[in-house]
């Protein structure tokens, strides 16, 4: 039985900013939707429905999807709120279009961490209330533990994490990311430990952001001359529940399952045909963990990092946008920023950070900063693969 192919027909965003203080969350969403529809060359009346990715405690409102239809122009249409990162909502939207249920849909996610006064408390409340919350005043300590496990097992050092930070901060300085700066690894190494072995510049700072993406079937894509195909997408769950006691530390186990699925869909290893990678590295070690899992070799990921093979202009640019370290941690909207960056690369619209001849990209995002679950997407231009 054949299923619809799924294409990205339009993207819209408000670029990541340290604080979008002049715009309400509804105004942010409206602006991004207007840009996405203009990019797709459609009006909101043509869209069948909406998938949004929000989290109650981050919004400060329960059932946040109540507020999306008016802003996105999807009143009296299909609606589904997916709790988590943007790419998880994209996964749902992909399945809805692929199944034939919908033909043309919007996917939305926004975050305003600049307005959250107690984010550590919010994130801490995702953990087991008996065993973990009482002992973890700051849940980012979990990232520190995970980084420690990764460094210990692979023999890598904080200098390697600083190389990741150097690369991504420099890329962001070129792309216009709010945290971009021309630091070298030694500068990064001189910043203070915050969650040892993670230093200050190994941790993404917050940024406000919103993305709206328009997906459509072949029928909806007809006539478009710059579409990007979602060739494969898969979400994979965690190795542990809220208590974390079964978690496999220092590795991204979820990537294995997602990668196997994408290999099955593509009948080949996506890393061999991909021109760039965008990944939501909230902490520097996560980029190396992700690449290690994607390459099925921790040694190879480290070798590529140390030899500059992950830089813009090299064989496999990773986070040419500057990633989360350079663009900020936009919470549940972070995957949207990575996704929009990758789409712009494949359309040749990435400006100062354009990867020459980019025809296929991998985008990955974590469910949340401290989760060991995530979503993986393989994108390609119409004639790639």
């Amino acid at each position, binding site marked *: 039985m054949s299923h619809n192919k799924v294409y990205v027909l339009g993207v819209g965003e408000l670029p990541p900013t340290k604080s979008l203080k002049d715009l309400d969350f509804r105004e942010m969403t409206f602006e991004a939707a207007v840009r996405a529809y203009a990019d797709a060359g459609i009006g909101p009346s043509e869209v069948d429905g909406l998938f949004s990715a929000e989290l109650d*405690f981050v919004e400060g409102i329960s059932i946040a999807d109540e507020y999306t239809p008016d802003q996105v122009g999807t009143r009296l249409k299909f609606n*589904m709120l997916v709790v988590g990162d943007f790419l998880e909502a994209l996964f749902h939207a992909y399945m809805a279009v692929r199944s034939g249920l919908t033909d043309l849909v919007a996917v939305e996610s926004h975050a305003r961490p600049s307005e959250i006064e107690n984010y550590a408390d919010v994130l801490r409340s995702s953990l087991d209330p008996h065993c973990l919350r009482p002992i973890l005043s700051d849940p980012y300590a979990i990232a520190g533990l995970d980084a420690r496990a990764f460094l210990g097992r692979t023999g890598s050092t904080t200098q390697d994490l600083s190389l990741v930070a150097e690369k991504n901060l420099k890329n962001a300085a070129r792309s216009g990311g709010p945290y971009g700066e021309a630091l070298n690894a030694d500068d990064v190494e001189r910043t203070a430990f915050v969650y040892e072995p993670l230093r200050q510049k190994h941790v993404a700072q917050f940024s406000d952001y919103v993305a709206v993406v328009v997906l459509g079937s072949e029928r909806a894509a007809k006539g478009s001359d710059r579409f990007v195909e979602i060739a494969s997408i898969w979400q994979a*769950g965690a190795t542990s529940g809220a208590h974390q006691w079964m978690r496999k530390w220092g590795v991204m186990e979820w990537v294995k399952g997602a990668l196997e699925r994408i290999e099955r869909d593509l009948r080949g290893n996506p890393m061999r045909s991909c021109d760039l990678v965008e990944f939501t590295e909230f902490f520097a070690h996560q980029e190396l963990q992700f690449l290690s899992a994607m390459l099925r070799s921790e040694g190879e990921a480290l070798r590529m990092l140390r030899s500059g093979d992950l830089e813009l202009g090299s064989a496999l640019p990773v986070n040419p946008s500057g990633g989360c370290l350079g663009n900020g941690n936009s919470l549940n909207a972070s995957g949207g920023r990575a996704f929009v960056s990758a789409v712009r690369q494949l359309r040749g619209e990435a400006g100062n950070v354009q990867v020459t001849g980019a025809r296929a990209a991998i985008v990955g995002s974590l469910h949340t900063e401290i989760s060991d679950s995530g979503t993986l997407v393989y994108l390609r231009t119409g004639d790639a693969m």
Partner: protein
Amino acid sequence: MRRVAIVGAGMTDFRSMLPHSSPEMIREAVKRCLDDVGSLSIRYVDGVLCASAPDAFDGYHDKVSIANEAAGAIGKPITRVFVGGGSGVAAAVSGWYHVASGLFDTLLVVAWEKMSPPYPHAQKLFQTIFEPVIEQPLGPNLIWIFALEMRRYMEAHNLSKELIAEVAVKNKANALDHPHAQLGAKITVEDVLRSEVMVWPVNRLDISPTSDGAVAILLASEDVARKLTDTPVWIDGVATCLDSQYWTNRDLAFPYYVYLAAQKAYRMAGIKNPLKEVDVWEPYDPFTYKELHHLDGLLGKPGLAPKLLKEGQLHRDGDYPASPSGGLLGVGNPIAAAGLMKVAELYWQLSERAGKRQVPNAYVGVAQAWGDLMQVGTVVVCRR
């Protein structure tokens, strides 16, 4: 489109202060569901979709993390959807496209709610669903706005409190036959009218209870379904529809969003005349008037449901049996789980395993839920 079937279902008791944690409820519902499919191993299941309403009920941020292990889904794809009270049926809609897309051959759909722990009452948490600038400062609660809607509905169709109270009498009586029901009872219209006035015209017995509970169903593609069971129940139509958040700008007399969702689901299922073609209805009934209000939307005829109720047609032995399960008024209302209970009821009815609740000759059924800020309709059409 790839056909999708429900091949198993299971649920916990619905209770206030159920002495189970959320993971324990999930585990029990999932076990009963898999046992229903010949003690199927969770290893056979490709992924899990969960639904639960506001995070505040469990006191967890991003509470999918409490479901993965409880559902046996470690390492499996697992995501969570929710659209407030519409979540349970929305989960079935979402589960449908998981399987219909060809990405999943089997999918466990599990919904739960733990409403008892909020002190002194879950109602306080509902204030966080209101618009933060204009509405929240007024300190609204759900009963206020539903009272407004009920009043408008009564006005539009000249309905009496006595007639609407018959929904509570019917559903609580139906729930006496449901093994997991919280509030099955033989009551009278007088009992409803004499119960405490919460916000006029809503009396206490017009309202479903706060509840704890979980429900799970197993979905499968056509090929797999035929291997797993001789009595698959097909999900042939699905839809959701979300209206504006600005509920004060809408005419509350008719749930247009439910109507649109139903029309889309009927088209998918090839149903042209729902009054003639649907044998069993499970409309969302958190309040007495809501069953009628939603049935009006599902039938596409404003004011028809009260007439059918008056004629006794909505009873289990009537021509249009509505909430034969006992509904939220009788079985209970653990928000997301309540909606999925309605889908599970269709599975039991259409596979002729509803026991004392069985509606004779049930071939086609419709389940519907409603939520967000009185603005979303979620609908599935199932067929034997």
